[in-house]
């Protein structure tokens, strides 16, 4: 009888063992999740701190294409500045006007 009681006393209940495995796995998951959260949290915090401390440069203003684009091909009418009807001639005497840098 005694040996039977002893075997019963040390026997493992399958349901109890299952509960312990579940509890253990949950504990490991919770601890690992917390550690990961702390790790990535510190990474984000560090990145944010570096970004905040970095000197800011204004982004270049975007230059978009126009809705209507002028024709780049030129026709004869507008292809070049037009020459005068006659070239300037040498002149003497007091000038009426002047042309130079302004």
């Amino acid at each position, binding site marked *: 009888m005694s040996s039977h009681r002893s075997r019963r006393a040390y026997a493992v209940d399958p349901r109890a063992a299952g509960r312990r495995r579940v509890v253990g796995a949950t504990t490991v998951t919770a601890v690992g999740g917390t550690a990961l959260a702390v790790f990535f949290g510190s990474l984000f915090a560090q990145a944010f701190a570096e970004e905040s401390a970095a000197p800011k440069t204004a982004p270049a203003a975007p230059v978009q294409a126009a809705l209507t684009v002028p024709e780049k091909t030129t026709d004869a009418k507008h292809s070049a500045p037009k020459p005068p009807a006659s070239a300037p001639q040498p002149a003497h005497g007091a*000038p009426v006007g002047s042309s130079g840098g302004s």
Partner: protein
Amino acid sequence: MTRTESPARTVVTALGTTALLAVLEPDALAAAERLMHAELAAIDLACSRFRPDSEISRLPAGTAAPVSPLLGEAIAVALQAAQQTDGMVDPTVGHAVRAIGYDRDFAEIDLDGADPLPAPQAAPGWWRVGWDGHTVLLPRGLALDLGATAKALSADRIATRAAAATGTGVLVSLGGDVRVAGPTPEDGWRIAVGDDHERALADPDLVVSIAGGGLATSSTARRTWRRAGRTVHHIVDPRTGDVPVSRWRTVSVAAATCVDANTASTAAVVLGDAAPGWLADRRLPARLVDVDGAVITTAGWPERRAA
């Protein structure tokens, strides 16, 4: 039709420079002068980037906006100049011109600043400007500067309108951008040429006469200032956004209009070594003075010095 009377003249300050008006009939001077003042006020209000209340300063970015006929004409002329010069004269240099320090009337610029210039940036490009003849669309980040053509356009408008209104011959010179219209003096309109349009009247490098059209001079010898020891001037190369290190100190060009003459003279400064060939190919009479004072002429420009 030619006339022999001595022209009557008046000189006023306008557009940050001098405006000279001459008419063959002295009785027509008052009417022509009124027309000139009205035109100068209108072009300044439409095109000045130094006035916060100007029409061009108030153009919105990123959305199409209708413009006045005068600003519309100025924009169309500027885009045409860019097209004619393959972008050597480009109105989208607004930010580049400001970056080199030309952000106010020249008289108010610090002529010897200690701060270095920021790194230059090429102009966005004239083809990005949306223009349908009535409305303009400026992309965000693009600023117009009509300085290369608006003054010449104004000279064209004043001369042709004053000649039509008065029936007499008219010469207009706005800071050295010259246009003549109407009847001509017997020997043509005598015009002094030099690095500086004001000094040239008393001490010209050369005096020429023209019977019509325009004559304009672009020079790197005037309107200069310094930043951190570097001398800069008002002409910007749209390809770099920086002032060109040009072979030419001064380029004078005669053309059918003052806008055409000024477009070509400005392009020549930017083009550098290629300028004489570019001008000759277009049959534009021109006088190019290099930085050492040597002179090259094209397409029939007279070489003889004034007596």
